[in-house]
């Protein structure tokens, strides 16, 4: 049972344009969502998070949107830069979940110069 789904395994965008990465979840108990960025042969790096009491969180070029009714969140990167090329993982957790995270399978973003 895949509780966190990233249905697009890859995404390609031009430098300077917007990148939109999507994530869907099935467990309504999730109350905290995170995005991680991972380069090859390295550990994931925490990027941005959002609590279920919010619908938007912004940090520089990165914005995460949460639609609880649709059980959907998205990460917007504006403007996209070649250095953003990486695999992006969506993750979710909930109180009572022993502070564990459930990760999606990731979306590989390629930003073309």
């Amino acid at each position, binding site marked *: 049972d895949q509780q966190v789904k*990233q249905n697009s395994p890859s995404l390609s965008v031009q430098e300077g344009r917007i990148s939109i990465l999507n994530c869907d979840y099935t467990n309504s108990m999730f109350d*905290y969502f*995170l995005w*991680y960025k991972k380069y090859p*042969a*390295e*550990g*994931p*790096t*925490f990027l941005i*998070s959002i609590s279920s009491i919010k619908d938007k969180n912004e940090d520089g070029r990165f914005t995460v949107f949460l639609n609880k009714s649709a059980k959907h969140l998205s990460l917007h990167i504006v403007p996209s830069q070649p250095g953003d090329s990486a695999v992006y*993982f969506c*993750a979710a*957790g909930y109180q009572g979940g*022993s*502070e*564990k*995270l*459930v*990760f*999606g*399978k*990731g979306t590989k973003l390629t930003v073309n110069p």
Partner: protein
Amino acid sequence: SQTIHQWPATLVQPVGSPLSLECTVEGTSNPNLYWYRQAAGRGLQLLFYSVGIGQISSEVPQNLSASRPQDRQFILSSKKLLLSDSGFYLCAWSVPGYRPYEQYFGPGTRLTVT
């Protein structure tokens, strides 16, 4: 500042051999510790997590075990490796009770079982 170390960075082991991967965290006390595996073409799968010394929870029945002999040390082991144990192993930590979901990952160990 906090740092997390994992070693070795890469490892090639024959089927049936034992395994020991080590993870240590510096700059924090009583962290939650986690072992993940990323198999080829798949996401991050939580294998074990620990909330304290000697306290280990297993997420997936498998050929692996974990131990936490010290507060900031987490070890992943196997007595006999299988081909299916190949993958990228990641250790992570978090601060319990304070932004608990924000986990911070080590550099990982690439394990190839031949």
